[in-house]
C-alpha cells in the first residue's frame, strides 16, 4: 500500500481499454469496467435529454403567460424531464457507472458475480431507454412522472403504456444490478476484506441494493396494473369502477420514496471516499456511517405516505407517517456530522473532487433540513405540490446525487481512463455548478411558500421575478454541466497520462494500474489493512509533484 506513485512506463501496458477493439468487443463485453463505460455513455445521453426538457420548462416559466409552447407541450416537457431524469439518470447513475466500475476493484474481485446478468441489465436499460425515446418522439406522455390515477388510466390519451413499459424495463435493470451487487459483496470479497474493512462506498451500495431489490418489484406490479387498467378497465385504481386511486399512490410511493434513497445513498458513499481521501484521514465513526446507510435503507421503506398528507389518507395514517418520517432524519444527520468531524485535524486539499464534496455537503444540508419542513404535517399542507417541494427534492437529487456523481467521476477519472483531467477547469466547473444550482433552486423555496403550485405553465404575474432568477440560474447551471462534459471528453485523448494512484488514496482500486487490466488484479489480493489507512500513506500530490513529468 505504501508504494510511491508508480511511474508511467514508456511502453503502453495492456489494460481493459486497449485489450480489444471494435464495436462488438464493447457490445458483447462482460467486463464490469467496460459495462460501466457503456452506462456512462448512456446515462450521459439521457442526462442530456432530460436537461433539454428542463431547459424548455425553465424557458417557458420566464414569463407568466403561456407563450413559448402549448399547455400540452409544457406538460409533456416536465413529464419527460421527470421520467428521464428519475428512471434513466438518477437511479442508475452512481450504481451503474461508479458502482459497476469500482465495487469489484474495491473488494478485490475479478468481476461482479454475474457478469452476463450485468450486461443483460445494461441491455434492459437500453431497451427501456429506446422505448422512452420512441415514446417521446411519437407524442410523449403528459401525466407527470408520478402518473397518478385516474388521470393516467382513464383520462389522458398519451402513451402511458409505452412509457410505463420503459420504466418497467429500467426497473428490471435496476433490480438485476442490485442483485449482482448483493451477491458480489457477499461472495466475491478478497481474503482479508472483512465487512469492517469494506470501503463505505461499498456499504452504501449494499444498502442501495436492498432497496432496489425489495422496492422496485412493487413499482413493477403497479405499472402492470396501470397498463392492465388502461387496456381492460380492471377498475383497481378507478373510483368510477369501484377502485381507489389512493391505492395507486400507496403502491407508487412504496417504491418511489425508497427510490429517493436509491438515488442518494450511493452518492453518500462517494462522499465518504472523497472526504476521507482529501482530509487524509480515516472516516470519523466508520461503523456509524456504514450502519446509517443500512438504517436509511430500512427506515426509507416505512415513510412513504408523507407524500400523501393532503391526498385523502386518514388523519391517523398521516400522524403515523409524519412521526416515522422524522426517524429517517437521524441516520442522515449522523452521516453529515461524521463527514464534518472527519475534516477535524485533517490535512485538507481543495482539488476538484473535494470541491464537489463541499458542494454536496452545502446543498445536502439545505435539502435535508427542508425535508423536515415537509415532514411536519402543518407545513406540508401548505407547501406540498408547490415549488417548495420541487426545490427540496432538487437540492437532494441534483445538489446531492449529481454533485457527488461529478465529484466521483473526477476522483476516479484517472483510474477509469488512465488520464488526468485539467484541474483548473474542473475547479471552475465545480464553482459554476454550485452557484448556478443555488440561483436556480433557492428562489423556488420562496416561490413555493408564497404559493406557486408545481406543474403550472402559466402563473400569476407576481411570481415572475423569482421565476426569472430561477431560469437565469438554470442557464448558469447548464453551462456548469457542459464544461465537465467537454473537458473530460477532451482529456480522454489529450489529458496527461495518470499514475496508478494520483491522489495517494487508500483502497484496493488504487493498488492496480490505471486503467486496470481486464481481470483487475494480477494476483488475488490479500487485505491486511483497515479501510482508509491514510496515516500509513504518504501524501505527495500529483499536481504539485507532477510525477508524470519527471
Amino acid at each position, binding site marked *: 500500500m505504501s508504494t510511491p506513485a508508480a511511474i508511467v512506463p514508456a511502453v503502453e501496458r495492456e489494460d481493459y481499454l486497449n485489450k480489444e477493439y471494435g464495436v462488438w468487443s464493447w457490445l458483447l463485453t462482460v467486463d464490469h469496467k467496460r459495462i460501466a463505460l457503456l452506462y456512462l455513455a448512456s446515462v450521459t445521453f439521457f442526462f442530456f435529454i432530460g436537461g433539454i426538457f428542463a431547459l424548455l420548462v425553465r424557458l417557458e416559466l420566464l414569463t407568466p403567460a403561456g407563450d413559448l409552447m402549448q399547455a400540452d407541450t409544457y406538460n409533456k416537457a416536465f413529464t419527460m424531464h421527470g421520467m428521464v431524469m428519475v428512471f434513466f439518470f438518477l437511479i442508475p447513475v452512481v450504481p451503474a457507472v461508479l458502482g459497476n466500475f469500482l465495487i469489484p476493484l474495491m473488494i478485490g474481485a475479478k468481476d461482479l458475480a454475474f457478469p452476463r446478468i450485468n450486461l443483460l441489465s445494461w441491455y434492459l436499460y437500453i431497451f427501456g431507454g429506446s422505448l422512452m425515446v420512441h415514446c417521446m418522439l411519437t407524442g410523449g406522455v403528459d401525466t407527470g412522472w408520478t402518473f397518478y390515477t385516474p388521470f393516467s388510466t382513464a383520462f389522458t390519451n398519451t402513451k402511458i403504456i409505452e412509457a410505463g413499459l420503459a420504466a418497467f424495463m429500467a426497473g428490471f435493470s435496476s433490480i438485476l444490478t442490485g442483485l449482482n451487487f448483493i451477491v458480489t459483496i*457477499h461472495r466475491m470479497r478478497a481474503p482479508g476484506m472483512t465487512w469492517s474493512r469494506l470501503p463505505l462506498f461499498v456499504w452504501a451500495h449494499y444498502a442501495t441494493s*436492498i432497496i432496489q431489490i*425489495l422496492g422496485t418489484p*412493487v413499482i413493477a406490479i403497479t405499472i402492470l396494473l396501470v397498463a392492465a387498467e388502461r387496456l381492460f378497465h380492471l377498475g383497481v385504481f378507478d373510483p368510477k369502477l369501484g377502485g*381507489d386511486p*389512493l*391505492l395507486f399512490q*400507496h403502491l407508487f410511493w*412504496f417504491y418511489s420514496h425508497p427510490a429517493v434513497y436509491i438515488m442518494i445513498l450511493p452518492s453518500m458513499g462517494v462522499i465518504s471516499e472523497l472526504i476521507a481521501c482529501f482530509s487524509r484521514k480515516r472516516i470519523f465513526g466508520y461503523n456509524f456511517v456504514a450502519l446509517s446507510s443500512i438504517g436509511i435503507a430500512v427506515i426509507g*421503506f*416505512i415513510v*412513504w*405516505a408523507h407524500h400523501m398528507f393532503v391526498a385523502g*389518507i*386518514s*388523519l*391517523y*395514517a398521516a400522524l*403515523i*407517517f409524519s412521526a416515522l418520517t422524522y426517524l429517517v432524519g437521524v441516520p442522515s444527520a449522523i452521516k453529515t456530522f461524521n463527514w464534518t468531524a472527519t475534516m477535524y485535524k485533517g490535512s485538507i486539499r481543495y482539488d476538484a473532487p473535494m470541491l464537489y464534496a463541499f458542494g454536496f455537503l452545502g446543498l445536502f444540508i439545505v435539502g435535508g433540513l427542508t425535508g423536515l419542513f415537509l415532514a411536519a404535517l402543518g407545513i406540508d399542507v401548505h407547501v406540498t405540490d408547490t415549488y417548495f417541494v420541487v426545490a427540496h427534492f432538487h437540492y437532494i437529487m441534483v445538489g446531492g446525487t449529481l454533485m457527488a456523481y461529478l465529484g466521483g467521476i473526477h476522483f476516479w477519472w484517472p483510474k477509469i481512463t488512465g488520464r488526468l483531467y485539467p484541474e483548473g477547469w474542473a475547479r471552475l466547473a465545480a464553482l459554476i455548478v454550485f452557484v448556478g444550482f443555488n440561483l436556480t433552486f433557492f428562489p423556488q423555496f420562496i416561490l413555493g411558500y408564497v404559493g406557486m403550485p408545481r406543474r403550472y405553465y402559466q402563473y400569476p404575474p407576481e411570481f415572475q421575478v423569482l421565476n426569472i432568477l430561477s431560469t437565469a440560474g438554470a442557464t448558469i447551471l447548464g453551462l456548469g454541466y457542459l464544461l465537465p462534459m467537454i473537458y473530460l471528453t477532451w482529456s480522454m485523448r489529450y489529458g496527461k497520462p495518470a499514475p496508478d494512484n494520483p491522489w495517494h488514496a487508500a483502497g484496493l482500486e488504487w493498488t492496480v494500474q490505471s486503467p486496470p487490466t481486464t481481470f483487475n488484479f494480477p494476483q488475488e489480493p490479500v487485505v491486511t489493512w483497515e479501510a482508509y489507512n491514510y496515516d500509513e500513506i504518504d501524501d505527495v500530490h500529483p499536481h504539485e509533484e507532477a510525477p508524470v513529468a519527471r
Partner: protein
Amino acid sequence: MSDQHEEHSSSLGFYVGIWITLMVCTGITVWAAFLDLHQFNAAVALIIATFKATLVVLFFMHLRGAGERLIKVWVIASIFFMLVLIALSMADFGTRLWS
C-alpha cells in the same frame, strides 16, 4: 452448501413424508373452508397456507440446511417488507372511517 450435511439415502423418504403432510394440509384447508368458523375461516386458511409454505421453504428449498444465516435474513427481510407494505397501507385504509 445446502443439504450436503444431510444423509442422502434417508432424505428421499423424508421428502415423501413432507409431501404427504402437504397433501393432508391441502385436504384440511378445503375441508375447513366448508366449516362455519365465523370470522376465523380466513385466519385458519392463512395459517394452514403459511404452515405449508414454511414446510416447502425449510425442507424442499433446503433453507433449514443452509449453513449460513444470510439467506434466512433475506427471506425474512422480504416477508417483513411485504408485511410492512400491507400493514402500513391498512393503517390508512383501516382508519378512514374513524372519526
